[in-house]
């Protein structure tokens, strides 16, 4: 068996021989091939992830464990993480997406939390080809099919369309769970002498070496290169959640790991490495579904719906009884030792004997060469745009009916978003809000990404990706507790790609730090490309914010008749990479929003005060499609008209269609205008119009739309 066949590089193989002081045997080589793949080892991105600040006053647990955890008060905490399932979803959309949801829910479960809400980030090709449509259909049904059955509401998400994702769709699933701070489970607490118990489904030949597969570019013929497809069983996942929580209530769990990529190998070696112990796995004791599985197949199988639970040996019978109650397989498959070794033993014979440290953490970092792409030099300047008065109407309607702006209810109505009766503000709104029954507070959640900005200006695009997710939280009155992210990129092996990756992460990390937002968890997905096509840089940001009460919450889409509409922030947005530019020009050029820390901090403070002072009925941060789109969405949701009266100097594309930067529209109660103006003075404040009874949206001097016309363009 050659090291190349398991995806290892020459220097990695040398490192293995050095660490071991011998040649690895075949089983060891296969295991290291998977564990040292990009997907499991983060070997290309570990140096980059160090840029993230993971400390803050709310942080209970930063990156490194199954999920990040933040303090939400009264002894309670929120655990959350986002994870990608891009490659599996490209091959088998329904199962790929479904098992993505299942995987992230188990991560939340693994820290002892109750999975409370999911969000999903989806990136699809834009041209409605049959292949794209059936892929979208499969992915959306897969997410719903799994989450709905498990009973975790999908309360929001992000859907982004661009042809770079044609054939390379992205599926990022995020889960948020609630846990009592005293009952958090970690993988650090295993002790020699304890028992490793596998609970859940039987082990089959599913997805063996799937992690390695996720670390390679998709070949022409994806179907032939794929491992056995993993099938999700949400029914078993639901039983697993109930069973693990019953074991937690009975205090039977010393440590726990979900089995994701690389199955038993990664979960067992991780527990041993983190706890500073060894672990022996008896392959013959693992309940299998398929006949004649080899020990390495058992060790690497990615069969879904399995957890590795570490317990005191005397508790085994109680654990087994609980598993049986929940119709789950249960088997004592290993033991924790004090020798630091990760061993796989089959029928008394040791087939794998490696230092536990080395399996999960031994892979040397790769420092790929980095080079600023040449294209960045040539696209710095954009052509000047004038507002084509006669085309204004058509442009507005095209933008409103662009899939990136259009109603996403066809997606989220396929997701159960009301189960668990905590969904106070559901999908369809810029932020989703769930109630925490445990302490009567509320979590506000967002997910966003700015791929075009990242492509035009990676550092500032990284910043904008964070800010797009953050501004709506500030505007609604929530304080941000922490962030999770999923870095979706093409191959890091191209110096240009690596440079973009580095710069976007730098921008993202700097902004999160400036805005006082710790990064507590995340995931990296590289090699999102197929021959001739690679994805835009897509750092997806998921944020969790806190609202003490709903009294402080400022909604969107709640315009009141007679309200006065204000634009706050810079009057002009940026056209580079905007929908306006993408619609009008074939080439995307220029400088997108430039990150200005002081302006963002000022926006944050004023927005939070605005929500607290209750001087507004509604707010909407300006996003894709610019000011016009934001106003149109407000009108559609509120089913109210508006009359917009802008000075001629403001009737320019940058004001009407520009994107990026801290800009928002507020619908201010007439008797509260003074308070509002006081809050926003010296920031940029422009009265733009009024909310009216008549169901029309008119832009004086330009054009007028009936609400019906806008609504029918926007709805699918």
């Amino acid at each position, binding site marked *: 068996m050659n090291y190349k066949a398991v995806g290892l590089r020459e220097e990695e193989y040398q490192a293995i021989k050095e660490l071991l002081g011998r040649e690895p045997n075949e089983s060891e080589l296969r295991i290291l091939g998977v564990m040292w793949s990009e997907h499991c080892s983060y070997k290309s991105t570990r140096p980059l992830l160090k840029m993230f600040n993971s400390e803050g006053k709310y942080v209970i647990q930063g990156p490194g464990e199954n999920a990040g955890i933040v303090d939400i008060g009264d002894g309670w905490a929120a655990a959350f993480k986002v994870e990608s399932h891009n490659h599996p979803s490209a091959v088998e959309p329904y199962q790929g997406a479904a098992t993505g949801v299942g995987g992230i829910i188990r991560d939340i479960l693994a820290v002892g939390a109750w999975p409370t809400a999911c969000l999903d980030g989806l990136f699809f090709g834009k041209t409605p080809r049959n292949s794209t449509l059936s892929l979208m259909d499969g992915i959306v049904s897969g997410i719903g099919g799994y989450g709905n059955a498990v009973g975790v509401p999908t309360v929001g998400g992000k859907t982004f369309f661009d042809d770079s994702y044609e054939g390379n769709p992205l599926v990022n699933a995020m889960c948020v769970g609630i846990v009592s701070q005293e009952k958090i489970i970690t993988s650090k607490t295993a002790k020699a002498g304890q028992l490793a118990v596998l609970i859940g489904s039987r082990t*089959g030949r*599913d997805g063996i070496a799937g992690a390695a597969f996720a670390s390679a570019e998709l070949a022409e013929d994806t179907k032939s290169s*794929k491992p056995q497809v993993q099938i999700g069983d949400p*029914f078993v996942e639901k039983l697993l959640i109930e069973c693990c929580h019953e074991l937690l209530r009975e205090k039977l769990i010393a440590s726990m790991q979900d089995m994701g990529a690389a199955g038993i190998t990664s979960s067992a070696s991780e527990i041993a490495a983190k706890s500073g112990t060894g672990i022996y796995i008896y392959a013959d004791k693992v309940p299998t579904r398929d006949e004649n599985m080899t020990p390495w197949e058992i060790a690497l199988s990615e069969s879904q719906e399995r957890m590795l639970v570490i317990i005191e040996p005397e508790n085994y019978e109680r654990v087994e009884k609980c598993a049986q109650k929940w*119709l789950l397989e249960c088997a004592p498959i290993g033991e924790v030792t004090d020798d630091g070794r990760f061993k796989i033993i089959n029928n008394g014979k040791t087939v794998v004997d490696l230092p536990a440290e080395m399996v999960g953490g031994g892979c040397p970092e790769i420092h790929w060469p980095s080079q600023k792409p040449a294209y960045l030099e040539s696209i710095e300047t954009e052509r000047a745009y004038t507002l084509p008065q006669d085309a204004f109407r058509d442009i507005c309607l095209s933008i409103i009916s662009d899939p990136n702006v259009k109603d996403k209810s066809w997606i989220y109505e396929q997701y159960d978003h009301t189960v668990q009766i905590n969904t106070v503000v559901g999908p369809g709104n810029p932020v989703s809000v769930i109630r925490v029954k445990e302490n009567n507070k509320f979590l506000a959640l967002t997910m966003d990404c700015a791929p075009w900005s990242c492509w035009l200006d990676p550092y500032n695009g990284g910043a904008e990706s964070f800010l797009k997710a953050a501004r709506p939280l500030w505007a609604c009155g929530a304080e941000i507790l922490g962030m999770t992210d999923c870095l979706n990129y093409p191959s890091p092996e191209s110096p240009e790609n690596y440079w973009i990756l580095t710069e976007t992460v730098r921008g993202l990390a700097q902004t999160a730090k400036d805005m006082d937002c710790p990064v507590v968890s995340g995931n990296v997905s590289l090699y999102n490309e197929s021959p001739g096509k690679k994805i835009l840089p897509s750092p997806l940001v998921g944020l969790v914010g806190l609202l003490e009460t709903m009294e402080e919450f400022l909604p969107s889409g709640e315009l009141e008749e007679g309200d006065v509409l204000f634009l706050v922030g810079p009057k002009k947005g940026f056209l580079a990479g905007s929908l306006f530019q993408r619609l009008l020009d074939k080439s995307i050029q220029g400088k997108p929003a430039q990150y200005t820390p002081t302006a963002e901090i000022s926006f944050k403070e004023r927005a939070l005060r605005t929500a607290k002072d209750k001087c507004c009925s509604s707010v909407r941060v300006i996003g894709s499609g610019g000011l016009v789109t934001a106003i149109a969405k407000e009108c559609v949701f509120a089913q109210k008209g508006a009359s917009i009266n802008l000075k001629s100097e403001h009737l320019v594309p940058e004001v009407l269609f520009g994107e990026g930067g801290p800009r928002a529209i507020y619908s201010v109660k007439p008797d509260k205008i003074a308070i509002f103006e006081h809050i926003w003075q010296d920031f940029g404040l422009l009265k733009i119009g009024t909310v009216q009874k008549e169901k029309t949206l008119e832009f004086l001097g330009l054009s007028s739309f009936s609400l019906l016309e806008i609504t029918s363009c926007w709805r699918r």
Partner: protein
Amino acid sequence: MLYHIKVLVFLKDGVLDTQGKAVLGSLHRMNYTDLKDIRIGKYLQLWVEASDEDTARNRVKAMCSDLLVNNLIEDYTIEVDELS
């Protein structure tokens, strides 16, 4: 000529049959312990207009690979009856 074609779709070996597993458990609980295993698939009945049996069969095969069967996880068999 109208042909009546039966397609039996079943999961490939090794692919987890989530439905079958749950049904097996329930039947065992109901004391059908003489049931050793159960696999659940799809039964499609198609009525196809074609000049001859071979054409009918080939058309259905094409439909299977284009839409009806997910060849990553499923296999199928075809049976043709002549009708009129």
